[in-house]
């Protein structure tokens, strides 16, 4: 900010930034470099910073050791379904709560809002019993349906939609557009930034989901990637090159998501801290 002092501060700022960047990236670097080491160089003292020789075998071996392709597809399917559900239901509910007047609206909003921070850790026992009663353990329904909509998504969409002028919707009504058409063709295109932020945020959370699949999945064919990785860790605990290879593959989609949708990725998080 203060221009005259900027050069002087640069001496502290840039080394500090380098340290911060280093701390942020170290586990990534270590994961990838160790996935390329051999079992002999893995525990070298002092540790090898650059793997020598480079050994790609671990990727293939780990992938074949368990049905990771299946886990990967399961995780993708579950994450995509949950994301689609949150986008659709969250935007519908947000639209309803921001642009329609009806009895009980404020109360219903508060009801939904109050679930925002109700953690799964509190409700996991009864939620498991409910899902069990529905006969959903070891099914995709059990993995997906309870998470199709979250208070956060409704809240985010409602806040964003409040910024969209009512006149726009009124004008479309006067032109004779049906309510569904107004939602789909007029309101939603205006919500793209919010939808993108919510979509990326939800996808990340769903990809990361661990405690719930751990509770309701016992069948191998339904395991998600986080389950597969933790299982692999407990059964092949010493094959660190393979473990790191699996970890790297499990991280890759998130890294790609971050690099291609960086703005939405960060906005989704920034919004969790905004009140308006």
């Amino acid at each position, binding site marked *: 900010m203060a221009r005259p002092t900027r050069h002087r501060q640069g001496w502290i700022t840039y080394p500090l930034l380098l340290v911060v960047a280093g701390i942020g990236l170290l*586990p990534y670097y270590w994961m990838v470099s160790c996935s390329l080491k051999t079992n002999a160089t893995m525990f070298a003292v002092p540790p090898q910073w650059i793997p020598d020789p480079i050994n790609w075998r671990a990727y293939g071996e780990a992938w074949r050791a368990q049905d990771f392709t299946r886990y990967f597809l399961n995780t993708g399917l579950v994450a995509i379904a949950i994301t689609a559900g949150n986008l659709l239901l969250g935007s519908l*509910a947000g639209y*309803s709560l921001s642009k329609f007047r009806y009895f009980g609206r404020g109360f*219903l909003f508060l009801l939904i*809002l109050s679930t925002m921070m109700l953690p799964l850790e509190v409700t*996991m026992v009864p939620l498991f019993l409910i899902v069990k009663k529905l006969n959903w353990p070891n099914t995709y329904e059990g993995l997906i349906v309870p998470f199709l909509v979250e208070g956060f998504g409704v809240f985010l969409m409602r806040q964003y939609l409040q910024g969209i002028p009512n006149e726009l919707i009124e004008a479309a009504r006067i032109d004779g557009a049906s309510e569904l058409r107004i939602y789909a063709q007029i309101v939603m295109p205006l919500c793209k930034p919010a939808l993108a932020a919510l979509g990326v945020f939800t996808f990340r959370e769903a990809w990361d989901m661990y405690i719930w699949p751990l509770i309701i999945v016992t069948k191998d064919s339904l395991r998600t990637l986080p389950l597969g990785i933790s299982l692999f860790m407990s059964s092949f605990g010493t094959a660190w090159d393979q473990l790191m290879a699996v970890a790297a593959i499990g991280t890759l989609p998130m890294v790609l998501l971050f690099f291609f949708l960086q703005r939405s990725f960060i906005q989704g998080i920034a919004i969790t801290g905004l009140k308006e």
Partner: protein
Amino acid sequence: MRPANNAGLARIIHEFFLNNPGWEKRLRVLASAQQPLLRKWFRLDVGAKQALFGYAILLPTLAIILVFRFLPMVQAFYISLHEYDLIRPPKFIGLANFVDLLQDPLFLNSARVSIAYVVFSCVPVWVLSLGLAVLFNREIRAKNLFRSAAFMPVVMPAVVNALVWTFMYHQDGVVNTILGWFGIDPIPWLRSSTWALWAIILIGIWRATPYYMVIFLAGLQAIPHEYYEAAQIDGASPWGQFRHITLPLLKPTTLLVMVMSVIVAMKVFAVPLIMTGGGPVDSTRVLPLFIYQTAFEFFKMGRAAAMSVFLFAAVMVFTLLQIRLFARGED
């Protein structure tokens, strides 16, 4: 057979109306009287129709939230009053679960571990995330690159995070190597009951700091530049500007970050489960992990639900705080 019957029925009806002319008229009157009502159903006035549409599109969300959020919450209280092992039917035992828990050294230890985790991971996160946000709010070269690098911990999935750090915390691992550069002796991170919790706390800090940094950055960017310019004209030092402009104007954001980070820290689960399973000697058995193990390893559903009620009470205090913060932003 059937056509003949139908014809017969039609004939009977026809004859009925022929013989009772008053009835046909009465039916006609009745039908025409219904018309405005029917019309009303199909052509509701615009406001009511819109309200109905509003309800309709909210319905799926409400259904899911009620069945999968509120019902479990209510059930948690119900189950907490029972002894239930998933096999025999639940047996009502009153408050015995709660009484037992308060005398159970394992539960009290678990609560202590959770509190220690929350306190010692959150306080550094507040300071570091605000510091980083201030740093990244300056004009710096290659800002995007540095910011992305600093943000990367948020990108890593929790399970991968636990796996990679387990390896890094190894006796001859990279963490101890780096500490060695500064003359610090190797630390038996995950194998020692004094260090294991600190190992997990460090990961929590590593992962949470960039998350709240982003929230602080959004808050900082909302502060008008003119304030700083005016302060500089008055000769305020950078620290003075921070103390008297940044901190007061960032207060709502700061409060929010405090509340959010505490709630998130209360829920930590994957990292301790994978890295230590709660050990060594219960030193990392945080409450969510203990709830999970009680319910799904020892199948004591009632006891686990009672623990959830305690966790719920703790989270609720902070949730109410947060809703109040959100609500204040509403008006």
